[in-house]
């Protein structure tokens, strides 16, 4: 096993993969808590168009990824929230981007390989320079998240009071989306556009099912992400199967039992809830719209 570590390409994979996994685990926690997982999926597909465009322009795909995902996240935060229509609109943009991506690739005759690697990940082919770049970006991401930690947590769970306390909720929301774009651009190099969920959401979703303590959940998410990545690289190095396949199998394989077991546990522990009167769903939504309140959690 350890002779593997002699090879530079394995070293590169481990280095890049580790930093990216940590950043993805951290960001993924907030992605799940803020209910933005679908947006994450959409952003990665939009990133595909950027990467393909970059290849067409003769530039490193990462730049295309960064440009398109950051642009898209800025657009999402500027357009604000039309709660009901939002998912479909994002879906349309996402699909349109995929269409653009295939256009770019078809114009760039002969390099379907590039498409392949953007879609499915390239961690085993990653160069030393790329490792450094990934490391730098991911560390920057981690640092910014560390600074934003408490206000981000506060505004994710309790946006009204956070706003009253002076937390710049909107600004933090926009900053978070940009960080998401960054994380996705990094993670795509490890698992590719299609399997982004496995690295970005899987560890966090699992951790959240295990513990309700934010600190522990975040640590667990990071730990799981690292484990999947390391194991994935090791398994892939020993076979001809792709890294992203192993990571997604590990991610789902751990998530599934945790998810099934935790829902049973919750039902048992649930205390009897006294009957209270709830206004009709539609009425509440209307009142929120009228009063100008913005409850974005878990949308």
């Amino acid at each position, binding site marked *: 096993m350890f002779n593997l570590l002699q090879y530079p390409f394995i070293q590169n994979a481990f280095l890049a993969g580790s930093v990216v996994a940590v950043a993805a685990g951290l960001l993924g926690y907030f992605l799940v808590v803020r209910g933005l997982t679908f947006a994450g999926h959409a952003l990665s597909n939009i990133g595909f168009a950027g990467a393909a465009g970059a290849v067409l322009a003769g530039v490193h795909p990462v730049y295309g990824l960064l440009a398109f995902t950051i642009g898209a996240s800025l657009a999402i935060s500027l357009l604000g929230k039309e709660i009901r229509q939002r998912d479909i609109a994002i879906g349309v943009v996402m699909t349109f981007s995929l269409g653009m991506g295939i256009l770019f690739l078809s114009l760039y005759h002969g390099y379907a390989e590039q498409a392949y690697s953007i879609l499915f990940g390239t961690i085993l082919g990653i160069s030393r320079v790329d490792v450094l770049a990934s490391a730098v970006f991911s560390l920057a991401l981690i640092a910014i998240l560390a600074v934003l930690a408490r206000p981000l947590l506060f505004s994710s*769970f*309790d946006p009204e*009071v*956070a706003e*009253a*306390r002076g937390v710049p909720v909107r600004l933090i929301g926009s900053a978070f989306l940009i960080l998401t774009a960054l994380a996705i651009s990094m993670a795509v190099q490890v698992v590719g556009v299609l399997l982004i969920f496995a690295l970005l959401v899987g560890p966090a979703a699992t951790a959240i099912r295990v513990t*309700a303590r*934010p600190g522990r959940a975040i640590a667990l998410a990071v730990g799981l992400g690292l484990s999947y990545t390391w194991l994935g690289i090791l398994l892939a190095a020993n076979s001809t199967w792709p890294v992203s396949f192993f990571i997604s199998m590990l991610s789902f394989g751990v998530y599934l039992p945790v998810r099934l077991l935790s829902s049973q546990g919750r039902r048992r522990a649930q205390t009897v809830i006294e009957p209270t009167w709830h206004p009709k769903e539609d009425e509440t939504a209307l009142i929120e719209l009228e009063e100008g*309140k913005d409850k974005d959690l878990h949308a």
Partner: protein
Amino acid sequence: MNALIQNGPLITLEHVNVNLGRVPVLNDVSLTIDAGEFIVIMGPNGAGKTTLLRLLLGLVRPSSGSIQVLGDPPRRGNPAIGYAPQHRNIEADLPLRARDLVGFGLDGHRWGIGRPDPNRRARIDQALAEVDALDLAEAPVGQLSGGEQQRLLIAQALLTNPKLLLLDEPLANLDLAHQQEVVALIARICQAHCVTALLVSHDINPLLQVTDRVLFMAHGRSAIGAPGEVITSQTLTQLYGSPVEVIQALGRFFVVGAEL
């Protein structure tokens, strides 16, 4: 309510107008609120009750007029003001403990991760104890009842030892027993800590015992005074601009002909 000796009133509004976009929400509102008072804000949806709270919190600027809160113009994030919004239906598997939610009140707004502080846990425990929720500290928030969640929000608001407590519909969606529990809790806290309370509610009856004055807002007009003065057929008819009948019976107020 103990009257507190302080330099001047706690809150002063003079001829305040607030427009949201082009819609006038508050029209020429003037009032003063003294320290230690317990004020209930009532009125139909859209009358500006929440806007008034946001005004005091510094989240909304008046188009004209002047406001003073604790001697200064309102500013965002004033630790002397505690705010507890209405508890909404929280998802059952929200990954947050009661203790974590309350803890936000202490340092949720500070940047960074925070240094480990031995006092932090003690202060949160104390706040939880104040609202009789210490035994709920480790429970996931989503699994608590509406009344319990509301208590947590109040505990969260208390962590900065505020002088003014703003509560937005704390009694909504609670059954009678829980309403009485929450009212007693708030009254007790205000007494113990000499806190002034402004509470938005659609129903005055659970609060009658503890209310000093009622601020009734409707259709751009407002009236403030003791419950018996404001909640009358005459006053409400004037405010709503259409006939409203108020019946006092069984020690309570029943309002007919108007949406509260």
